[in-house]
Structures are given as structure tokens and as C-alpha cells.
């Protein structure tokens, strides 16, 4: 074991006070420094954090961006989300493979460059996109891919690949990214100029109970997809016994096709942080955590600078804005590549330095969340809404939206439309209006709510986007008439098989079984009974799974089966005379024939 490694790991652990619950930060720092977490490093970390080696291995092996095997100095991760694929990611991938001379999952012989695929990195409106270490390069073509490799071979510095900055804060010196905001429609609510400190000041002039009442009066419901009333969540947490409470901001925007939180964090971080602070005041917390997905790490220096400014301005820290006794601060916890960590209890596990396994409920986070303390977990957009509610007052907030769904909703629109990007629309807007605005009126299908959402066709375009009809976290993936719906459903299933945490049986096994049977159908080897099989199996997975992932993962199959059944029916063959039309006798006996060294008369009749 090298002395340098011992010293480095010790330093990293001590920088986190050898706190077992900060395991995520420790293993990420080691991974950053060495490109992987070696077996020796695991032993050292375990010793420093007073835990067991297998616990370290357990965490490292869970997250896609951590590795126990050496990787190249630069890791190229091509987004293989369905939208990226429709827009040529496969060709781009081929170019990387050819130029690097390696396949996906491999490292160049000189140990410099590793090539991988990764699920949606939150750039579907500028697909295909690639993450090179922490640098995002959107709109990559095959030629661009070759250029990237050639350039990297010269300087090995991903930052130098950034040629032209994107709009808004993407050009901020601390961001310096090629990513674009693509804000196509600004509503009069969230995408409005911010008066820093106004919302927090107004909140502190009220009692915490009054703040909760305001949020309830505004009828604010969670924007992450589940739509739980935010005020009620806060009330439960405030009322739960415990001296220490937490506000967690879910910035693990991992639902394929979603990217609106990325834009909020880029353009309106003050509105997000104000919302967290207000939530902290309302529930009686002193600590807030932003759980930021690893794919957005390019924003962290900028976000830290905004937090620092808020501390200087008295908007964070002790006795905020002179309010005696209200102390609150926010830290950013980086994720490490796991979709499941967007599930609120998995997010908590990850913040605690554990595998991103969801927790059993009850108890709910409001009773027993982060470090077993009462905790609120809110989506980035929900917290922005909170800030607006305090800025405008609940009555004005209620003027936006429809009867039972107040406010606006940010939609992340991608795929076959003329203007992909972020749209702020009043809740209650019809899908048709949205499609017309984004230039996708000729869509044959729209996936509403990301991979776990539902695929709807033209007969549903007059339905409304709101909590009582088409409820969504905001991802709309538009598919034109030439797209193969089964391929799309298959891409989503691949995603879920990859991202299931594996904790519970139905999700771990059932999603694989669903995908395999869909492949059988796509290969033209299925019978009508296979469609019933999909439906029954999908229902079992939904009913029995432990968390939201498995409770929704069969949706791509179940909703396409429901809304696009003819596509499936065209692929199945009826049984004839009691024989399975799809059974290939010759193929079934082929291996036996080979072993026996002779051919079957019947199989080849």
C-alpha cells in the first residue's frame, strides 16, 4: 500500500470529520483523485470512518459514477436516452468507437480515455449530448465526436472543449458551459425577475404557522410528479417530535426527458435557495441540503458562490435578516449517478452515505427522514413556487392555473418538435395547445411524465396537464409519425432494468421479464397470449413493488399496450391448429443435432 494513498485517503476522510454519514463525499473525492476506489482505498476508508470494508464496497458498487476498477483520466459518457438516440446518438457513438478504437465500457490501452453510455443527462432539448468528466457538450454530431477525441488526445483537458458558451448564466465565469437554457415560454410566475431577499423577508414577518397556511391557501402541490400538497407535508414535519429537522431539495432531476430544474438552478438559484430557507423557517429546521445529480456538477461552483453571497447578505447563517433565533444554512450534496435517488427516501439514504435504497414507509420522512429526523423533501420547482407565493401572496398565485391545480408548470419538451426547451404554462393547459406552441402538432404520440409516465396518442390531446388529469413532473417527449412506438417503450424498459436498485423482487426481476417479452414481440415471435402476459406481469410489478420506481416502471408497456394496441397486434401471430406459429422446431433442436452429429427428419420436414 503506497504511503501517498494512505495520506490522501486520511486527508479526505478527515476533511469530512471521519463521519460515516458523509461516505458519499469521501468515496467521490477518492474516485475523483484516482479515477476509481481501489481495494486498498476501501480498506482505508473503512478504517477511517469506523465502518466495515464491505459497507464501502456496497456504496461504491451502487452508483454509476463510482468505480472499483481503474478508468481513464477522462471518461466520455454518451447519453443513450431515447430522445438522444432518435437524434443520432447511435451514429455519434459509432464515431467515438471508431476514433477511440475501443468499445463502450472500455478504456484505451494507454489508460487515458474511457467510453461509456449513461442514461438521460438532462439535456434532451439539445440532444445528442455527451458528458466528458464534468463538462457537458450538447448537440454532438459524428464529426464533432471525432474532433473531441482528437483534441482530447492532445491536451486531455475537457474544459478546453468548451468553445462557445450557452445563454444566460451558462456563460457565467463559474459555469462556463455550452449548455443552453432554451426557455421558450416565460410565464408570469417562475421565470420573472427576482428581488433577492423579498420572499424571505416577507416570510420572517409572519409566524411559521402563517407561512404554512399561506402555502396551503395557495394549494401548492409537489412539482416533482407525485403532486402531494406541500403545505400538508410541512405541517406534518413541523408537528413531528424532534429537535433537529431538515429541508431537502430534490435536485436529482433524473426522469428521462426532464431538464427544467437544470434551468431553474442555472437562472434562478436565489429563488430555489429562498424557498429552502422559507421551508426551514416554516418547519423549524436549521439545515437544508440540496441533493444535486452528478450530471449537473458543472453548476456546483456557481451554486456555491450564490450560497456564499446569501451568507454575506444575511439571507443564510445566524439570525437571518436580523430575525433573532432563526439560523439556517444550506449545503450541497452531490449524487453519483443513480436514478433511484430521485425517490425521496432513496435520496435520504444517499445523503446519509448509504446505498441509494429507498426506505420502508411508514415511517414517512416527515416523521423520520434524514438521520432519522423529521424532514421535508421538496422538488426544485416546488421550492421556487414557495418563493413566489411569499412574493405575491397566495391569492395571486391561485390566479394562475385551473380550479384544483394552481400555479404554472414548467414543461421540459423534447423530441420531434420544432422548438424543444422549457415552457412555463398555466396548469390546466391542454396537451394540444402545448404541442402547437412547441411545433409538434403532428405528433403521433407523446410520452407525458418521462419514462415512468404514460404514452398518449392524438385521441388524448385535448386532455389537460394538471393534477387531476395528465399529472406530470413536466417531461413531454414528442414522437413523430415515423417513430417506432415499441422501440421507444423498449428503451424505457432498458432504462428501468438498468436503474432498478434491486431491493425488491418485482422490480428487480419483473422489469427484466417485461423487457424480454417485449423483445420477443419485436422479433415477431409472439402470440396473442404474450400481450396478456405483459399486462398481467406489468400489473404485478406495479402492485407489489416497494417504491415509485417499480410502481410506475411498467407504464411504458402498459400505456402503449392500451393506447397503441394495433402496433402490438401487428407483431403477433395467431395460433393455428393448436400449434404455436412462432415455435421454430428446427432452431429448437439445432444444438442437439450438432451434438448428435445428425439432423432430425421431422424438424426439417
Amino acid at each position, binding site marked *: 500500500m503506497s504511503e501517498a494513498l494512505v495520506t490522501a485517503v486520511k486527508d479526505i476522510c478527515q476533511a469530512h470529520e471521519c463521519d460515516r454519514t458523509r461516505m458519499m463525499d469521501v468515496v467521490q473525492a477518492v474516485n475523483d483523485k484516482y479515477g476509481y476506489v481501489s481495494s486498498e482505498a476501501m480498506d482505508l476508508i473503512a478504517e477511517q470512518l469506523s465502518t*466495515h*470494508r464491505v459497507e464501502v464496497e*456496497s456504496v461504491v458498487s451502487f452508483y454509476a459514477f463510482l468505480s472499483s476498477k481503474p478508468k481513464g483520466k477522462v471518461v466520455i459518457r454518451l447519453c443513450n436516452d431515447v430522445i438522444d438516440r432518435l437524434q443520432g446518438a447511435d451514429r455519434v457513438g459509432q464515431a467515438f468507437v471508431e476514433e477511440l478504437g475501443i468499445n463502450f465500457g472500455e478504456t484505451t490501452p494507454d489508460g487515458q480515455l474511457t467510453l461509456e453510455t449513461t442514461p438521460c443527462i438532462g439535456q434532451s432539448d439539445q440532444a445528442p449530448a455527451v458528458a466528458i468528466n464534468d463538462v457537458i457538450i450538447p448537440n454532438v454530431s459524428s464529426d464533432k465526436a471525432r474532433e473531441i477525441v482528437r483534441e482530447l488526445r492532445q491536451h486531455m483537458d475537457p474544459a478546453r472543449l468548451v468553445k462557445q458558451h450557452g445563454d444566460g448564466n451558462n456563460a457565467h465565469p463559474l459555469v462556463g458551459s455550452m449548455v443552453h437554457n432554451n426557455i421558450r415560454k416565460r410565464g408570469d410566475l417562475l421565470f420573472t425577475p427576482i428581488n433577492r431577499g423579498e420572499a424571505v423577508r416577507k416570510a420572517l414577518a409572519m409566524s411559521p404557522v402563517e407561512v404554512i397556511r399561506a402555502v396551503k391557501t395557495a394549494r401548492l402541490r409537489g412539482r416533482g410528479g407525485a403532486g402531494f400538497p406541500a403545505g400538508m407535508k410541512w405541517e406534518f414535519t413541523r408537528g413531528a417530535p424532534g429537535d433537529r429537522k431538515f429541508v431537502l431539495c430534490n435536485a436529482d432531476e433524473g426522469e428521462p426527458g426532464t431538464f427544467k430544474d437544470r434551468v431553474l438552478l442555472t437562472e434562478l438559484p436565489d429563488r430555489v435557495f429562498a424557498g429552502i430557507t422559507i421551508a426551514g423557517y416554516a418547519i423549524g429546521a436549521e439545515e437544508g441540503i440540496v441533493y444535486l445529480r452528478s450530471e449537473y456538477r458543472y453548476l456546483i461552483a456557481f451554486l456555491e458562490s450564490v450560497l456564499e453571497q446569501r451568507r454575506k447578505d444575511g439571507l443564510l447563517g445566524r439570525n437571518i435578516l436580523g430575525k433573532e433565533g432563526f439560523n439556517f444554512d444550506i449545503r450541497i450534496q452531490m449524487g453519483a449517478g443513480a436514478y433511484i435517488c430521485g425517490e425521496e427516501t432513496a435520496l435520504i439514504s444517499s445523503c446519509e452515505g448509504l446505498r441509494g435504497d429507498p426506505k*420502508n414507509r411508514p415511517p414517512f420522512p416527515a416523521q423520520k427522514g434524514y438521520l432519522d429526523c423529521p424532514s421535508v423533501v421538496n422538488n426544485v420547482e416546488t421550492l421556487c413556487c414557495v418563493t413566489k407565493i411569499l412574493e405575491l401572496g397566495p391569492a395571486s398565485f391561485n390566479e394562475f392555473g385551473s380550479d384544483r391545480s394552481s400555479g404554472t408548470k414548467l414543461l421540459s419538451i423534447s423530441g420531434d418538435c420544432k422548438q424543444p426547451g422549457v415552457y412555463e404554462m398555466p396548469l390546466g393547459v391542454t396537451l394540444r395547445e402545448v404541442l402547437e406552441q412547441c411545433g409538434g402538432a403532428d405528433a403521433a404520440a407523446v410520452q407525458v411524465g418521462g419514462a415512468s409516465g404514460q404514452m398518449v396518442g392524438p385521441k388524448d390531446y385535448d386532455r389537460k396537464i394538471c393534477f387531476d388529469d395528465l399529472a406530470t413532473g413536466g417531461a413531454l417527449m414528442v414522437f413523430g409519425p415515423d417513430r417506432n412506438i415499441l422501440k421507444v417503450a423498449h428503451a424505457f424498459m432498458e432504462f428501468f432494468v438498468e436503474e432498478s436498485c434491486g431491493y425488491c*423482487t418485482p422490480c*428487480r426481476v419483473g422489469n*427484466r*421479464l417485461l423487457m424480454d417479452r417485449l423483445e420477443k414481440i419485436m422479433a415477431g415471435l409472439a402470440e396473442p397470449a404474450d400481450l396478456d402476459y405483459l399486462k398481467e406481469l406489468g400489473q404485478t410489478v406495479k402492485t*407489489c413493488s416497494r417504491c415509485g420506481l417499480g410502481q410506475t416502471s411498467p407504464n411504458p408497456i402498459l400505456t402503449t399496450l392500451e393506447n397503441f394496441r394495433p402496433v402490438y397486434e401487428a407483431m403477433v401471430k395467431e395460433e393455428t391448429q393448436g400449434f404455436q406459429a412462432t415455435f421454430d422446431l428446427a432452431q429448437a433442436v439445432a444444438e442437439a443435432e450438432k451434438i448428435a452429429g445428425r439432423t432430425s427428419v421431422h424438424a426439417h420436414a
Partner: protein
Amino acid sequence: MSQTVTLTIDGAKIEGQPGQMILGAAQEAGIYIPRLCHKDGLTPHGSCRVCTVMVNGRPMSACTTPITEGMVVENDTEQISSLRRDLIDMLFVEGNHFCMFCERSGNCELQALAYRFGITAPKYPYMFPDRDVDATHPDIMIDRHRCILCGRCVRSSQEVDGKNVFQFVGRGEEKRVAVNAEAALADTNVDVTDAAIEACPVGAIIKKRVGYVVPIGKRLYDHKPIGSEIEADGAVTAK
């Protein structure tokens, strides 16, 4: 606290203690709720989902859901049995289970549940995964082909033995039980008398040199279905 909580399971009124889980309360009342990852005395895991019941119409795992006053639980219905059969099927096809060659046959909870639910062959296609065997330890063998990822060894080692011999690594389909050593079980502080070794419901962790000491035909579930010990006697004690 001396107060009791009253609930109904399949229409039968039962009483339990506050804080008790549905599975435990049912067991004390002589009602068997099928389970695999649960073991009395260990922290509930809620992973196999075989104990899924309908609670006021919503699916919940009985091992992790505390009882509440007036709760209406459905356990033995055709709908739930069908779901449980699916889950048991999944556990069979996910691994490589060859009952006829397995030393645990007759004492295996997975096999016993399959019999109880009338499963003679799984309806899902076998996956035939490529898994490994760790026979490095002089007294104990791990055969991961038969592991159902219930985590009973993990929790027993932590909670009963005060060790940390086993833990899950990997995610999704890659998830497996690893040992607290760089290489293998022989390098850990596991002992053949550990509770973790007894905790395995299937043939994934087996003791060496004691195979077939109890002959086939005289094993736990050879004559009576799993769960009958609970159903036979309403006074069976449960944790």
C-alpha cells in the same frame, strides 16, 4: 402500554399491540402471512414482497406496516395469492434452483412456499444467471445460484452476531451478497455457529459435512406445508 389495537384480517377480528407489524400481529392470532425475507427477531426488510397484503384496499408489505386501529387487511384472497405466486415464480427463475440436487430440499422456505401455492413449474422463463460459489471457508459454503437476496444473513450477522460479515453490493440485476473481505468468506470472521448461517431460508449458505444428516422425507416441510405451524396453534409466540 397496555392498550390493544383491533383490526380485521380477511374479516376476522384480531388484536395486537401498538407498534406491532401486521405480520407479527397476525401470527400471534394464528394467521399465517407468507413471507421469505422476514425472520422473527430481525429488523423487517420488506424486500421479497411475498407478504404483500391489501391494507384498506392498498398493497402493503405486512412485515413493515404497523397495525392501526380499525385497519382492514386482506390476506388470503385469490388476487393476493396470484400476486404471491408471481413473486415466488420470479425468485425461482431469477436464480438457478435445482431442488432435486439441493441439500436444503425439504427445509427450503422458497420450495415450501411453491408447494403451498401449488406451483409445480414457474410460468416465467428461466434466466439461468451466471453466478459464483464461494467454498473457501472450511465449514461454510456460499452458493449464490440459490440466493434470493432476502438479506437475512446480512441482518443476522449485524443484529444477532454483532458482526458485519455480509452486505449487499451492486445494483439492480447485479445486486449480490458480498462478504466483508477483499476476496472470500474464509478471510472474514464468520463462524459456523453464527446466526447468519442459520438464517438463510434457501440453500445459498450451507454448512459443510452435515448434508443429509436429516434424510429426505423427515425434513421440516416434507409432510406439512410451511405456515401450518402458525395456523395450527393460535398461541404460537411471535416477536
